[in-house]
């Protein structure tokens, strides 16, 4: 049996699974925008909300953390860059390098915002099938006649379908290389090249096979999309999100 990446849709019965995808997309955009302007208190409230949603939807945070390890390295780089480049009162000073208090504060804030947005994205993908994401994007782009909505939606749906496939390939390739003691090679560039090239090749091969299988089943842009239907629960959720966002803005 295959071990799956957690960065993919998993069927379930949580509130997030039941919500209309258009509302979920709207919540994702709203909360992301609010988090960009939020201070420590606002981000604290949003963290509480995201934590509750993670627990409720049973997001496998432990394995998700493993998938996010490269993102965490990126966050550390952002934090380091902020701490070292923002002028202000020095907290620690070693020769000419100083870690400043405003730098630390702004670095933590930025990383916190990025973590919230990433977790929201994770929750969205975890609770929404890619066919619904495609249908929602198409719905949002419908009024803009000059934008090829169907094509963009199809591309987004395929990207959402492919992210777990690529992550799976990366894990399998890395495992195969670990089995042949790649960890004894300390040069990170060597290891990156050794992982990257076969991964790209395998991803393209897999994409090729998937395209053939989809073609064999008459795939086209014009297909029956999932029926999108807003219920009372979606409107109630929207009201709650607006209240929370308004509260954070007013702080």
């Amino acid at each position, binding site marked *: 049996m295959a071990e799956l990446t957690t960065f993919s849709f998993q069927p379930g019965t949580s509130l997030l699974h039941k919500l209309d995808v258009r509302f979920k997309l709207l919540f994702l955009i709203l909360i992301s925008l609010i988090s960009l302007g939020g201070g420590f208190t606002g981000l604290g409230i949003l963290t509480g909300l995201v934590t509750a949603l993670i627990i409720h939807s049973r997001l496998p945070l432990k394995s998700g953390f493993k998938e996010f390890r490269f993102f965490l390295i990126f966050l550390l780089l952002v934090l380091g860059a902020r701490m070292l480049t923002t002028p202000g009162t020095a907290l620690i000073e070693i020769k000419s390098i100083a870690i400043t208090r405003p730098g630390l504060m702004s670095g933590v804030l930025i990383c916190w915002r990025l973590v919230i947005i990433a977790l929201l994205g994770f929750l969205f993908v975890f609770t929404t099938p890619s066919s619904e994401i495609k249908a929602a994007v198409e719905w949002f782009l419908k009024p803009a006649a000059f934008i090829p909505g169907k094509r963009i939606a199809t591309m987004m749906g395929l990207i959402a379908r492919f992210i777990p496939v690529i992550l799976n390939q990366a894990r399998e390739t890395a495992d195969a290389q670990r089995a042949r003691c790649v960890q004894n090679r300390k040069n990170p560039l060597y290891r990156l090249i050794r992982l990257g090239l076969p991964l790209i090749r395998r991803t393209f091969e897999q994409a090729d096979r998937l395209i053939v*299988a989809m073609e064999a089943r008459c795939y086209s842009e014009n*297909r029956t999309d999932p029926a999108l239907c807003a219920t009372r629960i979606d409107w109630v959720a929207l009201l709650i999100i607006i209240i929370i966002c308004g509260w954070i803005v007013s702080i």
Partner: protein
Amino acid sequence: MDIIEIENLKHCFVDGTLGLDRINLKIRAGAFVVVAGPNGSGKTTLIRHLNGLLLPTDGCVKVAGVSVQKDLMRARRLVGMMFQDADSQIVGETVYGDVAFGPENLRLDHDQIRERVALALDAVGLKDFAEQRPHLLSGGEKRRLAIAGILAMEPKVIAFDEPFASLDYPGVKQVLKQIITLHQAGHTILVITHDLEKVLAHADRLIIMQKGKIVRDGVPAEIVGDIETFGVRAPCASHLGIEVRSWLN
């Protein structure tokens, strides 16, 4: 009535390699045909012409009397194809979603899709797995899911490319049973394999390919004797001079 008619089919790949060399073949509706041959003999290339996944360099392929090139969608609806790697055939995020993929592409309405998916899942015994993630199914179940995905498009012909590859014994039996049930339900069956042992007992026609050509074509019992000269292992039973028996007995 011949459901598949292939006339003078030639296929060259982009690098100039000759994949198929002047193939002439007719398959009657309801037949159970096994196509065997060593790797690179052109088996997969041949069946990919049946639903237009590959187009002829020369010659013509007709499905139910109509040229595949003239109406690709019709050919793809009439000829379902199960690929060697069942994983790469899975496009849905749930078992239900995967089976619904084909009918959605045919632009059926939601009620029709629900009905077809329910029938297809019932036919392969995966009704209780509808909300399960497909990648977590066993090898045999994945193959059955692929069959359900094909059945939901209501094809006349079903082509299986190495359906038993990397399956354990129960998995082989599950898939074989499914293929026989489909044949009994009236589908024309094409099985591509280089492992005749598992399926030959059920076939009414055996085609052997080598280097892009059909080198033997006939009733299995009559031609199985010399197939090893073409790089295909004959079933053990035929070596012992006894009748090839089904794996289901």
